[in-house]
């Protein structure tokens, strides 16, 4: 009986994993199948023209801008906020409420963030429709993800490490960046990778704050179009699935590179990676 149950569960575990992999393969496969024909040097590096299909280079640049800026702002704030909630704040009602609110905000549709950004960053702060306004909006979108995953990662660091370090006369801060954060790095990293995904995959919040100008941005105060917004526009209005899929291929490659980079950087930061 027990054995049967074990085997059943084991079967379910295998099944789920296979299912996930199958989904992965089908989706990625579909995107490649639909889009690979459009991929060419000119498609990627050419200049955008509204008549031809290609020239997504400005959008690649814009996409990278938004990712980098959003992460540069959201990662430190998110991690430090999580550190505060987990390591400094008294674990009471207030912290619980903050956590609760944070979690609940992950479920707000991004278009609402977009409208907020359009009112607050674009109009009130007079940033205009710009990469920076979009990045700030995206920062708010990914903050909950980073905070929550970092908190979880911090929780898993054994208490003995903290004691050991403090007993050696290290300050809380030293303990934090020498022992705790390195030990929590894998968890934090997964939060960052999820955030990259969230940023890259976002469209509604971006086109309301950065607009859809299909030209090379001159600065982070320029209005511009990310790859995802581009693919959104072409599916929404033109129904050009091949083009959307081709953009998807480019995005997958970008994410792949960024994820590897993030892993690499965290390994570098984390000398305590044994």
């Amino acid at each position, binding site marked *: 009986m027990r054995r049967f149950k074990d085997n059943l569960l084991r079967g379910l575990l295998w099944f789920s994993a296979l299912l996930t992999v199958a989904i992965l393969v089908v989706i990625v496969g579909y995107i490649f199948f639909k889009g690979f024909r459009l991929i060419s040097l000119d498609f990627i590096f050419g200049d955008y023209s509204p008549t031809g299909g290609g020239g997504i280079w400005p959008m690649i640049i814009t996409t990278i801008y938004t990712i980098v800026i959003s992460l540069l702002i959201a990662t430190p704030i998110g991690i430090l906020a999580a550190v505060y909630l987990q390591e400094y704040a008294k674990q009471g009602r207030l912290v619980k409420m903050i956590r609760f609110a944070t979690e609940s905000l992950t479920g707000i549709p991004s278009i609402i963030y977009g409208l907020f950004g359009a009112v607050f960053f*674009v109009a009130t702060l*007079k940033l205009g*429709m710009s990469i920076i306004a979009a990045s700030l909006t995206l920062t708010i979108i990914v903050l909950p993800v980073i905070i929550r995953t970092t908190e979880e990662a911090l929780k898993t660091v054994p208490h003995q490490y903290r004691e050991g370090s403090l007993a050696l006369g290290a300050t809380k801060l030293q303990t934090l960046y020498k022992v705790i954060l390195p030990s929590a790095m894998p968890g934090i990293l997964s939060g960052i990778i999820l955030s990259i995904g969230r940023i890259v995959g976002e469209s509604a919040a971006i086109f309301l704050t950065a607009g859809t100008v299909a030209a090379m941005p001159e600065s982070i105060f320029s209005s511009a179009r990310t790859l995802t917004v581009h693919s959104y526009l072409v599916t929404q209005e033109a129904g050009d699935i091949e083009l959307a899929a081709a953009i998807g291929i480019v995005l997958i490659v970008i994410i792949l590179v960024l994820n590897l980079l993030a892993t690499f950087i965290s390994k570098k930061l984390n000398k305590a990676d044994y």
Partner: protein
Amino acid sequence: GGNNENEAGSLNEGKDTISISGSTSVGPLAEKLAFNYEENQDVNIEINQIGSSAGITNAISGVSEIGMSSRDLKPEEKESGLDETVIAYDGIVVVVHPSNKVDNLTTEQVKQIFTGKITNWKQLGGDDKEIVVVSREDGSGSRDAFQEIVGYTSGELVKSSIIASGNGNIKTTVATNEHAIGFISFEYIDESISTVKINGVEATAENVLRQKYSLSRPFLFVYKKDHLTDAGQQFIDYILSPEGQAIVSETGAISLH
């Protein structure tokens, strides 16, 4: 000021920048116009396709110099001092799956289909198949125009109809469903769907201009007079010129002449 958001403009070697935002239906057309206009003029045109309402709001608040709309202005919007210029017309065509044998409908039949009075293609001389109605979202310019001309209201629209956002989505939905019927702009017609004659009249630009084909709506540029720069005015003039209108025709929209 009308250009407060365009710090980029000053970085750009003193080029004038015209910022335009709004309808995703007008957007592609405006992009092509701008693309051609910029080749000869020392000007930088920013086009943001963010939806008619957002574009109108931007035109009012001054975030954008010009708003693009594919629907008529609401009274409140007019009150805030917006001017409008029709830059083109957009023909709307009823589309079905290519396998569908039905290729001609009367306006009344269209109305009955969209209000749920006719529910099977059999009733229209087609196969014995349930009709799946595909419409745009409430507030959409195409939908407003379509309903007004066909003669039913949003409240009458059959409740089980699929609501798709954007021409592209209607096209994809209809192209993948033998039961479906929907409506899209002329610009997006291709071989993945087949078009339906209305009252025996083919959906072409000439027929619209000759007022034989009734399903069309205007594409608008909206702006506040005092926000409009010389460069902006010149761009509008260009669009209205024969040269500009030629481009309008090229893209599948209907020129003013």
